[in-house]
């Protein structure tokens, strides 16, 4: 759907631009309102405004922001000039804000390249108007059940709306993603079988159990987690795709990964989800024509932003904070799996309650039972400290996972948790927190650091 501009468009563009200037003058956030205003006054505004010649879109349940950050940092360092929505929202109004900012008063884009994080649930409001040149899809998992329902709903929506001209950069180890928009040109990225892979799903959730072609039962050649892995149909010839950008060796000791084509890249993080994020970034940048040298030179210097992951050694104890999005069962399960597999004895803080619901409603906790709290039932995890509005549900969920009650500290007040932290024999303290609990995480981290220092001074 492409629309001519017309007087209404220019009027809305000027209004939106003026609102942006006004907001900036009074020191307010100008990343949301101008776009919201534009799509409210002119619902097909996204179709009318000119777009940069090349658009890289990044969508999927988990990893969108990290992949966008990596793409943007690499492009910037290699001299590319582009617009992006990293400060604004990833829905239609956020994209509109970015395009308004990037356009001159004639509605012409000043830059030729855009990097857009695109919410997968917003496909219906975005793709009728924006045709990404490349669209990366990181993965599709169950997310907020209230908003995103389930992966069948989201993948159907993407199938219905992804423009036919868009080249897809898909996670070939995700059988839901690899089957998106079958008519589109595509390349796949993936990681060959790892020693840690299994032959059966260890997770509560596996959303890909039957063949998308004939409905027959899928047999997994290996499972990495949930429906991530490689599989084939037991009744027809459907199977996981051949991977174009395939990692065939990961060397965690030297923090390097090797691709089947012989290229080697430095790892910036040892978590498998971030290795996938790096691989998605490499695949799209290679498709754009960047060389391995240019990509690796830049990627190797990057780090996962502090609000998502941080590590600090305090005396003999490592304090690690890790984003773990509440209401997102697979994101939390990945983090729980990461924690249990890290070496050493650990204490784990869990701060995943939805703060908005805690203040205004009562959170639907069904997602906790799609989440693998069972991974926290591990010999190396000595204490689990859980707090927030749903702390009573937390005690039950942890016991359902088989965790002995003696290991659990549960309190309503988050800031009273640290007094119960037992540091004896502990080598790592993990603070797992929701996206909207950054300041809470910082306060708790501060308390933990002080407690460690205090005990070491004794």
């Amino acid at each position, binding site marked *: 759907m492409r629309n001519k501009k017309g007087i209404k468009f220019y009027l809305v563009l000027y209004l939106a631009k003026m609102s942006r200037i006004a907001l900036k003058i009074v020191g307010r956030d100008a990343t949301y309102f101008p776009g919201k205003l534009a799509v409210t006054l002119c619902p097909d505004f996204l179709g009318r405004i000119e777009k940069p010649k090349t658009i890289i879109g990044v969508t999927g349940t988990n990893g969108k922001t990290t992949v966008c950050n990596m793409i943007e940092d690499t492009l910037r360092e290699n001299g590319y000039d582009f617009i992006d929505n990293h400060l604004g929202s990833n829905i239609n109004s956020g994209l509109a804000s970015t395009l308004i900012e990037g356009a001159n008063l004639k509605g012409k884009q000043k830059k030729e390249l855009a990097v857009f994080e695109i919410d997968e649930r917003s496909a219906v409001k975005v793709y009728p108007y924006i045709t990404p040149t490349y669209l990366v899809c990181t993965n599709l998992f169950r997310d907020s*059940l209230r908003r995103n329902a389930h992966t069948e*709903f989201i993948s159907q929506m993407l199938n219905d709306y992804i423009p036919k001209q868009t080249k897809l950069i898909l996670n070939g180890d995700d059988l839901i993603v690899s089957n998106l928009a079958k008519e589109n040109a595509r390349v796949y990225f993936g990681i060959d079988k790892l020693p840690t892979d299994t032959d059966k799903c260890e997770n*509560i959730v596996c959303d890909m159990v*039957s063949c998308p072609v004939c409905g027959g039962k899928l047999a997994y050649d290996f499972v990495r987690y949930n429906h991530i892995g490689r599989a084939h149909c037991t009744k027809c010839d459907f199977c996981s795709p051949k991977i174009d950008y395939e990692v065939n060796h990961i060397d965690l000791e030297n923090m390097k990964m090797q691709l089947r084509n012989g290229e080697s890249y430095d790892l910036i993080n040892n978590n498998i989800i971030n290795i996938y994020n790096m691989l998605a970034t490499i695949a799209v940048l290679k498709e754009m024509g960047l060389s391995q040298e240019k990509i690796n030179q830049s990627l190797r210097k990057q780090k996962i932003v502090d609000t998502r992951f941080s590590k600090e050694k305090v005396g003999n104890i490592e304090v690690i904070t890790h984003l773990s999005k509440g209401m997102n069962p697979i994101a939390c399960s990945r983090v729980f799996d990461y924690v249990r597999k890290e070496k050493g004895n650990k204490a784990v803080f869990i701060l995943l309650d939805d703060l908005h619901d805690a203040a205004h409603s*009562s959170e639907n*906790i069904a997602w906790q039972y799609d989440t693998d709290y069972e991974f926290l039932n591990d010999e190396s995890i000595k204490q689990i400290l859980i707090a927030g509005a749903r702390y*009573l*549900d937390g*005690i039950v969920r942890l016991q359902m996972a088989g965790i002995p009650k003696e290991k659990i500290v549960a309190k309503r007040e988050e800031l009273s948790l640290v007094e119960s932290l037992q540091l004896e024999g502990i080598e790592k303290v993990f603070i797992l927190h929701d996206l909207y609990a950054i300041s809470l995480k910082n306060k708790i981290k501060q308390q933990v650091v002080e407690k460690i220092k205090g005990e070491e001074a004794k």
Partner: protein
Amino acid sequence: MSLETKMKSTLDLNLEDFCEWKNQEKQENTFHKPEKEIIIESLFPEYCGYFGDGQNMKYLQKCIPEATFINTPLEDIPYFAEHDVDLLYMGTMTEHTQERVIQKLLAYQERIKQMIEKGVHFLLTGNSIEIFSQYIEKEKGEKIPGLGIFPIYAKRDMMHRHNSLFVGKYEDIQIVGFRSQFTFAYGENAHCYFAKVEKGIGLNPQSTLEGIKMNNCIATYLLGPICILNPDFTRKLLQELGIEKPTLAFEEDVEKAYKQRLKEFENL
């Protein structure tokens, strides 16, 4: 397939942990052992356990480890087709799966009707209620016929998802729960409802009666781990299954969480 192999092939993967735990529990819980073995069948848990629904039967396993739990995959013949069961459970699934499950169960339509008439216990959560309805109507009017057992039908609108909290009265028990769905149901359930709405909605926003109860067959749009969220309900269910004085798993903690939620919901 023998019952034993069926259980081995389909029980969750922490079978060893579960058996160990089961043995410990067996010793502690012998006092409420029922006179005959309780058999509980979960239908198609690999497809019908969305949004935590799958954990309802895991919780019952923890409450009554002496019972036999059968997980029947979609491609197998259901155990209930040829044997008696005490409780049949099915949870939330995707819309595409609904069509496959209806196709599967149509072959057992008469058997299911007889079981309901005989007073066999059913627990159907989330959109599995629609499998037993007259039909599911899609956005453009296309109707997917259901098993035709419940006097209701559902209308689906994939562009609008309804989310709400629920408090309702099931006999003398206050039920709490969550709704999250693309459909509303219509029809007459005044003589066969599950719970009277106190907060939230019934079959649809205009309805004050939630779900269906026909003899011992309970079907509710509430989804998630409702057996964990509702200790009074679960206790009653276990009593009806023949356990005189049921002890719930983590009873004290489950009770506290229930009371907190009920209070929160009532204050909203």
